[in-house]
């Protein structure tokens, strides 16, 4: 198990840092390719959401320089980045991936969106071939664990989502949402969800602006709202009391001068900006204006913190599931580790058996069919009895996480070699096993 993971998330780094590591979806395949081309990395995938950027890898020796990759790729110095990074290896990396997929590491614990985002990242990496056997196993299991957590605990029920937090905050500003107008800037899933919540709480109408006008029209139709051309955004934005913005723009699209315009046109009536974009769409300078209330993704985390306590108990159940699943996964991997040894051992003894039968045939001449059957049964029985204890020991050791030691012992005892060292043990020797054992003692 040579899994290695590095990343930053909403807990380890402020949004100013996360912004610098934000990876547009279109760049994900390239970065996956770059990752697997990096020294020491066999497989790699990148999870990039507004709350986290993580590299999940399977390495050749368990200690690839993932920090170096991040420094090189994002042109950041160790001083700028390293204090915000976390790194997990082996079992801890598995646990972290399970926790992320199960939404236990999310800003809003239990929210369902992260699983979809991880699945998308997995699909992207798989499509470019940077995820194969090892990461494939890890993520296939992670998705199953996430499903189990969701079905066996209430951590995802009555979800405190960004959407419901947005409604709560809007109520602190406006009292009632009856008659308030909502403006969606960017047509992301999370903003759509937030808009749905706000409309359910009595908001009167909705405007949608998106760089792709057709998408804006489609979304506006869903809410019986009005699509606005993106170029006309600033002319219409002041009509909204609540603006949910989630564009992929590299810089803030709402700046101080826009805020001043809006407030002037609205006679200083307050506006609430829910900025779920990373990098942020609302500049900090605009957020300082009296009458502008802008909550970015980190602020929403603070707002939901009060709700986290309600879920702590469910999260504890979920953590217990994760722990047992990590153990199961590790045991399964260890079992997989012993399989080649068992196969080698079987091949090795079978080769010896065949060699010995051939030797006997050479001395005694052709055997009758009955004799052949008797010899076959006798030798096979001996081999099976000889193999029974080592195989049982190997399987038990795999479950007890002692596989590496036992594998090593068995391989030394029977002089089993890795495939790349040569196909089979030296069983063609006429001296038989005693010589091989002697050989390992050299």
């Amino acid at each position: 198990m040579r899994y290695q993971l590095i990343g930053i998330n909403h807990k380890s780094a402020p949004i100013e840092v996360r912004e610098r590591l934000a990876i547009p979806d279109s760049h994900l395949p390239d970065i996956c390719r770059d990752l697997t081309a990096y020294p020491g990395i066999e497989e790699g995938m990148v999870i990039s959401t507004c709350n986290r950027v993580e590299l999940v890898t399977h390495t050749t020796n368990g200690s690839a320089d993932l920090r170096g990759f991040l420094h090189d790729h994002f042109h950041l110095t160790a001083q700028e980045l390293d204090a915000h990074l976390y790194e997990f290896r082996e079992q801890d990396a598995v646990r972290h991936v399970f926790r992320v997929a199960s939404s236990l590491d999310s800003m809003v614990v239990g929210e369902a969106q992260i699983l979809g985002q991880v699945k998308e990242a997995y699909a992207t990496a798989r499509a470019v071939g940077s995820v194969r056997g090892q990461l494939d196993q890890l993520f296939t299991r992670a998705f199953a664990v996430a499903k189990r957590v969701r079905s066996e605990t209430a951590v995802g029920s009555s979800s405190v989502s960004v959407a419901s937090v947005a409604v709560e905050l809007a109520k602190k500003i406006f009292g009632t949402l009856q008659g308030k107008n909502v403006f969606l800037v960017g047509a992301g899933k999370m903003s759509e969800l937030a808009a749905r919540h706000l409309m359910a709480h009595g908001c009167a109408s909705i405007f949608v602006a998106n760089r792709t006008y057709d998408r804006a029209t489609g979304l506006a139709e869903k809410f019986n709202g009005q699509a606005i051309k993106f170029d006309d955004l600033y002319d219409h934005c002041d009509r909204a009391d609540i603006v949910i913005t989630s564009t992929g723009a590299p810089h803030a699209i709402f700046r101080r001068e826009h805020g001043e315009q809006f407030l002037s046109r609205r006679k200083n009536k307050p506006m609430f900006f829910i900025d779920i974009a990373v990098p942020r769409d609302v500049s900090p300078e605009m957020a300082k204006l009296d009458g502008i209330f802008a909550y970015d993704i980190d602020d929403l985390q603070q707002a939901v913190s009060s709700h986290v306590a309600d879920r702590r108990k469910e999260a504890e159940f979920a953590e217990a599931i994760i722990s047992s699943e990590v153990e199961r996964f590790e045991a399964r991997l260890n079992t997989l580790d012993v399989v080649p040894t068992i196969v080698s051992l079987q091949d090795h003894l079978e080769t010896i058996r065949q060699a010995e039968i051939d030797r006997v045939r050479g001395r005694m001449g052709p055997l009758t069919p009955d004799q052949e059957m008797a010899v076959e049964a006798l030798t096979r029985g001996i081999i099976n009895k000889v193999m029974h204890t080592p195989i049982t020991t190997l399987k038990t050791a795999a479950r007890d996480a002692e596989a590496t030691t036992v594998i090593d012992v068995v391989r030394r005892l029977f002089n089993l070699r890795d495939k790349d060292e040569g196909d089979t043990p030296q069983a063609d020797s006429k001296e038989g096993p005693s010589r091989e054992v002697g050989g390992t003692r050299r």
Partner: protein
Amino acid sequence: MSLLWLRFALACYFIGLIYAFVALTRTSDLFSRIALHAASLGMVFHFVSLVELFLSRQVVWASVHNGESLLAFFSMTFFMIIYAIYQTTSPGVVVFPVVFFLTFVAAVGQQPVLLTSFVPYKGWLVVAHIILIFTGYAALVLSFGASLLYLLQERRLKAKKANSLTDFLPALEVIDQIGYRSLLLGFPFMTLGLVTGSVVAVATYGRMDFLDPKILLSVLMWIVYMIMVFTRWNSGWRGRRAAVLASFAFIAALAAWAANYFSTIHRFTAS
């Protein structure tokens, strides 16, 4: 006897005062209800005190202490009206201390103190003047309080840290409505109060002395009041600017009140 009822009212308002301080640090529904009931009971005692004063034929509304008592009662009335509409006791954070202070000085002071300047035959006009002006003052107190609460809630929301105070205060727009409606309601009362006062002054002295500190400061207060209403109506001033203006109006109102001690035509004696 009137003074006794007023002191009972003061005891009740004291609970409201404690509530005002406690509410700044933590929220308690139970304490909020207790404070509300205490304030209601205080108002009953207060009302009885005022009625008794009126029936005693010692109607000296223009005495300092009776004026303070009347202003406290009107302020509390406004508070109750707001509670009835918005179901929030949070303006009490400002109103309760003001009411307690006014009632305190009225209840412990020497009473009655007669205003000697006014001629008796204009009595009803004087009463109308006082009631109108004090209603305007009470509205101003409430508007000022709402401005402060708005500022507080705005800062809390900007700081993005949920705490008990944020939960205790009503929504920003509700506070804004309380302030604006108080302003709108108080302005005509204040205007009419000044008009009746002017009528009484002209009838009494035959002229208006605009250089008299009381008249000067009252006019200044009215101008600030008008600017507040206008800026709010025209530009929707809220938050910091509105709070600054409300503070200015409040200071002007205090100055106009204090001018009673210096005015030659509108002065409480032996205060």
